[in-house]
């Protein structure tokens, strides 16, 4: 294989693969779109049950068409059969869920396994029917991507266009269904029918995908792209767009790569491409990816550590001085360490961090001293902490002796706006409640007054 051949295939310059690539990429995009709603509805595995439930339909359709004297393997007929038993299977899942104590997973598992068993039994029977050869029908289990011809392509394209159009037309209703089905129901939306429409859309994609990637791997097309897209965004519109794109890219890559090596089944390569994109998204996805989330967590830990250090320093200054305008004096490290029971390592790390941020200076004597900016920051943080304490005492009925710890957990998230609200709410000029600390209104007010 040469580099030219690879780029030629990827750019669709080979006529053989162009049709298949377009068909599968379109399928991937539609599956990504519909699958997004399935994922948000927390019903991803319903696609699994559905795709297995199509198998008896394929067998029955083949037998019927053969018996009536048509070509048994005509694609539209097989797909109609698949749609009927597929939809029937999904309705059974809904019915079992509604009328028994069994949960989702069991209902799906029952339909999946029984229909699949029945399907295999029927296929075996059909294979031994005299007359037409049913060889290749089990291609629907694993898919036979490369065998797509022009008429198949047209049929697939029509179904996919209709599916996409319906999905986009019902965007608002489906969104409501996925995010708050109970609300939708109280607002008078026909939730059951919306669910059934969603299932019909999934059925359409699944049935079309049977031919292309097979009934087991079409599940991946429905689940993997939306899940990957979810890591990058918290907005539905973007998620739908990304999910469709990822589906299309997986299809394009999968078909192209399998066209280059004679020995690779296209369906499997498509799934592996999608899974690779998923893995990348799961690690690096900006909205919910593991790495960005971990970094955000580290950042928060740093912030919390810094605020604890500064507040402790400030509180020690208060405890050791009687005169009111607080003087920024150096304090020994040991005193600081005992104040919050830090370990030596922890404290050293916090101090290193605070020094790099220019909040703390180390004196020649080995003692620590707040820098000018650090002093301001420390007084602000301490004040926020006490404001929050006051609020908890006044409105959450927490005992003054216990309030320190509770405040400790929330204060790091206080934004400027909330601080303003607290100030307004607590009215610091009239200290009517017990506070474990002194808050001097005069010292506290110089920040800008809340507007409005």
């Amino acid at each position, binding site marked *: 294989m040469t580099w030219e051949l690879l780029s030629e295939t990827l750019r669709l310059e080979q006529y053989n693969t162009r049709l298949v690539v377009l068909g599968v990429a379109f399928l991937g995009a539609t599956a990504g779109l519909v699958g997004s709603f399935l*994922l948000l509805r*927390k*019903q*991803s*595995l319903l696609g*699994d049950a559905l795709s297995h439930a199509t198998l008896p339909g394929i067998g029955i359709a083949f037998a019927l068409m053969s018996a009536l004297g048509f070509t048994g393997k005509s694609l539209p007929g097989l797909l109609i059969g698949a749609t009927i038993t597929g939809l029937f299977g999904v309705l059974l899942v809904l019915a079992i869920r509604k*009328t*028994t*104590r*069994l*949960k*989702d*997973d*069991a209902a*799906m*598992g*029952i339909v*999946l*396994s*029984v*229909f*699949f*068993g*029945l*399907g*295999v*039994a*029927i296929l*075996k*029977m*059909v294979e*031994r*029917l005299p007359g037409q050869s049913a060889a290749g029908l*089990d291609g629907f*289990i*694993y898919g036979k991507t490369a065998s797509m011809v022009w008429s198949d392509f047209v049929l697939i394209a029509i179904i996919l266009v209709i599916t996409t159009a319906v999905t986009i037309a019902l965007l608002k209703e489906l969104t409501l269904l996925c995010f708050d089905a109970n609300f939708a129901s109280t607002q008078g939306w026909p939730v059951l029918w919306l669910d059934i429409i969603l299932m019909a859309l999934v059925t359409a994609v699944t049935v079309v995908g049977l031919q292309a990637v097979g009934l*087991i*791997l079409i*599940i*991946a097309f*429905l*689940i*993997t792209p*939306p*899940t990957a897209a*979810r890591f990058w965004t918290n907005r539905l519109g973007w998620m739908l767009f990304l999910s469709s794109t990822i589906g299309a890219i997986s299809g394009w890559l999968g078909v192209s790569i399998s066209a280059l090596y004679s*020995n*690779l*089944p296209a*369906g*499997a*390569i*498509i*799934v*592996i491409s999608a*899974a690779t994109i*998923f893995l990348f998204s*799961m690690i690096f996805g900006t909205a*919910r990816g*593991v790495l960005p989330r971990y970094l955000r967590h580290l950042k928060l830990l740093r912030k919390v550590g810094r605020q604890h250090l500064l507040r402790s320093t400030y509180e020690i200054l208060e405890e050791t001085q009687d005169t009111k305008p607080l003087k920024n004096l150096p304090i020994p490290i040991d005193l600081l360490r005992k104040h919050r029971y830090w370990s030596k390592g922890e404290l050293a790390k916090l101090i290193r961090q605070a020094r790099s941020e220019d909040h703390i200076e180390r004196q020649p004597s080995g003692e620590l001293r707040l820098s000018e900016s650090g002093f301001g920051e420390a007084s602000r943080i301490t004040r926020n902490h006490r404001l929050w304490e006051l609020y908890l005492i006044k409105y959450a009925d927490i005992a003054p002796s216990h309030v320190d710890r509770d405040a400790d957990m929330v204060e790091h998230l206080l934004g400027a706006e909330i601080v303003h609200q607290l100030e307004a709410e607590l009215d610091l000029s009239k200290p009517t409640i017990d506070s474990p600390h002194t808050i001097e209104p005069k010292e506290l007010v110089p920040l800008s007054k809340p507007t409005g």
Partner: protein
Amino acid sequence: MNWTANDFHIILVGGLCAMACALPGTFLLLRRMSMMGDAISHAVLPGLAIAFLISGSRGNIWMFLGAAIAGILTALFTQWITRFGKVERGAAMGIVFTTLFAIGLVLMRKAADHVDLDAGCVLYGALEYTPLDMVTLFENETSFFAVPRAALIIGATLLFNALVITLFYKEFKLASFDPGLAETQGFRPQLMHHLLMTMVAVTTVAAFEAVGSIIVIAMLIVPPATAFLLTKNLPVLIIVSLIVAVLSAALGQVASHFPPLLGLPDTTSSGMMATAAGFLFLLAWLFGPEGLLKRQSREIEAPEFD
């Protein structure tokens, strides 16, 4: 209908397998993880293929190990994606098993150059051929007693499952109904979870060659679900699901003889056993104590106001 000793052997293997599956299946159902059986039985494919590529032959201990490891990895990967990626469990499971299945298909295609090992045999199994491979257990001048080799393997699996569940009955029960309480009591529900997954993987693998994964998936889910509709008592639930499992196997084998009577071709025993299990479930759904029909008549007698 030509009923032979072979039918008895097929029912023996199928029934043992169904019972072996129904045991862990009961706890999967209680933990709302029924789909895990489906996922694991698809995902063992790469394990089989890799073990085959390494050892160069099929039906040995390497295949068993490879598949068991793949099965356990499915459970682990699903758990990791759920926990670290904060993905819903169903979706995580779907991604893991389809990906492993796809990798398995590719590897099998590679392996197929060397020997006959196709995905079809994993799905359908070869239940009909089990009577061809017999092992004599007992023999003297007047009589002898032989069983299919597959029956021994699956019987051993059934014993293993029964043993594990008897030994850890209390732990499984608590971990299924109240993982939180189990945790505080020091019962390690996570450990129980992994043990259960190992049981499912081992059972799947032991059964795949003889009976195919269709029966495994069906018997992991359907008999326990059927029993669930009939009782609310755990020991009774387990016993009823074992009975339903055996009945499904017997009924399925009998049913596989019907199509020829109607002039239709023969069919597979494994597919019919799964179908029979579905039929038994349907009966329980319709006529069970909380069945659709009872529910209807009760509603007519005393309408509920709530």
